[in-house]
């Protein structure tokens, strides 16, 4: 039944698409007009500040006075003479390594559960599980978290765990993507496997996961990039200080502190660029490994 419904609308389209429509001559101008607001934003709010920050990373800019060129000093200091910087890298890596898998496993588990509901209140539960993510970046939520885990947050050995949990709890976005992915998997594969006597685990391992691997990969890349940039939760939970005893000194938090409370904006810019390059490298590595475990349906 489901299959039949999906097939039906297809033929209607192809008629209109037969010949390429003739474009009005100034359609390019119109395209730019519509692109305008986005272009303005992209150039004015993203590209230009990035170029400026790259320049500033080679200066001693202090927010107030005109920057002086210092060459690679900031970068040299980062790696040679700033133990706290290395601490912040370690904290961030720990956070990424714990929070990303935890979040993805949770998201997948709940997506599987919801997928098996099919119609029986699925919409309701989907929204309910998604809700925390909607509030995700909100300060209020992090404050509530702070209040709930009062003593944990104030103890160096547990503070990071509470932030990992807070992040894992906000698994809504990957969950919804997983759910969409799950619903794309052709049912006949499962039916065939069931006829052959495959159990639930077998089907999960041999059908669901391989068929879902592109979605899994997408979520992994997205969440990893996200996790490296985590800021709000750590800022609020630790009262903006990365404490106690630097146990939640995230990379971005340290960057913020250097830039905005110590006025070393040149240094902070250098940190930002190192982070950007690091994320790019890690993403590239993930893409490289993907050829070994990501299965696209059209492959043999």
């Amino acid at each position: 039944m489901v299959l039949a419904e999906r097939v039906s609308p297809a033929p209607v389209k192809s008629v209109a698409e037969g010949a390429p429509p003739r474009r009005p001559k100034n359609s390019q101008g119109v395209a730019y007009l519509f692109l305008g607001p986005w272009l303005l934003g992209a150039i004015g709010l993203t590209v230009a500040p990035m170029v400026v920050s790259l320049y500033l990373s080679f200066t001693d800019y202090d927010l107030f006075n005109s920057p002086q060129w210092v060459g690679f000093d900031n970068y040299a200091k980062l790696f040679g003479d700033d133990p706290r910087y290395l601490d912040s890298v370690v904290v961030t890596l720990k956070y990424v390594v714990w929070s990303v898998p935890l979040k993805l496993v949770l998201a997948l588990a709940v997506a599987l559960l919801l997928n098996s509901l099919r119609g029986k209140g699925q919409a309701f539960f989907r929204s309910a599980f998604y809700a925390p993510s909607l509030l995700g970046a909100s300060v209020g939520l992090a404050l509530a978290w702070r209040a709930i885990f009062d003593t944990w947050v104030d103890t160096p050995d547990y503070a990071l765990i509470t932030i990992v949990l807070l992040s894992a709890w906000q698994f809504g976005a990957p969950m919804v993507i997983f759910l969409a992915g799950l619903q794309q998997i052709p049912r006949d594969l499962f039916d065939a496997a069931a006829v052959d006597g495959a159990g639930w685990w077998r089907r999960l391992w041999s059908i669901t996961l391989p068929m879902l691997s592109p979605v899994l990969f997408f979520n992994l890349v997205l969440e990893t990039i996200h996790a490296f940039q985590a800021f709000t939760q750590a800022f609020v939970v630790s009262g903006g200080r990365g404490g106690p005893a630097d146990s939640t000194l995230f990379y971005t938090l340290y960057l913020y502190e250097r830039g905005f409370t110590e006025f070393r904006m040149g240094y902070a810019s250098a940190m930002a660029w190192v982070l950007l390059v690091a994320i790019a490298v890690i993403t590239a590595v993930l893409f490289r490994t993907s050829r070994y475990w990501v299965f696209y349906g059209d492959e043999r």
Partner: protein
Amino acid sequence: MKAHKVVGLVLGAALVVSGCGAKGGGDGQQEIRFIWWGNDDRAKVTNEAVKLFESRNTGIKVSTSFQNFQNYFEKLSTEIAGGNAPDVIQMDYRYLNEYAGRNVLLDLSPYVGKEIRTADWNSGFIGSGKLGGKQVAMPLAQNATAIVYDPKLFDAAGVKPPRIGWSWADYKETSAKIQASTGGKIAGATDFGGTEDVFETWLRQRGKKLYADDGKLGYSKDDLKAFWQLSKDFRDGNATTPPELVTTLNAGAEQTPMGKKLSASEHTYDSLYGGYNTVRPGELALGPYPSDSKEVLGSYRKPSQLVSASSRTKHKDAAVKLIDFLLNDPDAGKILGANRGLPANLKIREAVAQNLSGANKVIFEYQKSVDAQLGDAPAAPPKGDGTIYKLMQRKHEEVVFGKKTIDQALEEFWRDAEEALK
């Protein structure tokens, strides 16, 4: 090409729109922005005073906002860097050099004694807003370090409250007794080892100071080591708060161990008493620091806050007018009371003292009781002190949580502090 024209058009339109927005009312109405740090009770009186100012100066509109101390300077630096500096800025002694040294504060010298009246001022106190011959700020009020304590707990444990002449050993013994009398549920004293203000007071008791005249650290490693050891003795003697509570300081009275009823005594400034009194109305009292020196209490007449104008303000006169009003207007003085500490204008201070109640009364009486012992304020701390303040907190935390030994933390503190002062 056509596309360029379109992009240009859109860009132009955006500029025109934003240009219009920035201008605002052009009918002689001046709008200035005034920001400060504090809490709700301070906001209430400050806004009341600002309203009065507006009603007397119909051409000037003042928009106000406030933050807690922790976030205030981050917000301020961002706003200034973004070219959106507030016109009138509440300033902290600790950050004076940080900002004035970067030329973001208006030199008020031309106005002092004229538009900003100073006839009823202690001339030494005016000087606390001066740096390198420029009057970069005016002190708003005077405060001093103090111990805020819970007299009931002191009574219940049968110990004497803070008083002139008590020593740090007395304090430790007293705190341990209180802590024991509550079955360890309430600490005798809040851990003070990470707080630079306490360290400074303690240093002064030993004839030293936080910063030497050349802006370098004014104490030796041994001094800080002894201070951290003192704090450790309190911990070892079951006289102070557990580690989890060291991170809650500096957040606002309601979040400190004292505000949460987890401590019987806490280091503070008398001007913060209003905040404590809001959280625990009528329950707390102020007393002097302990000191091992018979002569020196270590506390001094500190400008609790200062007020500056932005060097980029477009409405200098209005900003100066507001500053003078906050400092010297008798009605404003009445409204503001001792919320920021003792008013800098001595006539207003006297007038406020005539009619005291609640928190104001406690603050005034405390300052009176220690007045003879108060020293003059040292020069404003150098650039980098804001960083060192946090550094001390952090390194002390690492000691408290057993992550580092005192010696390790000390070495790291020293390296980073010297770096911050460069």
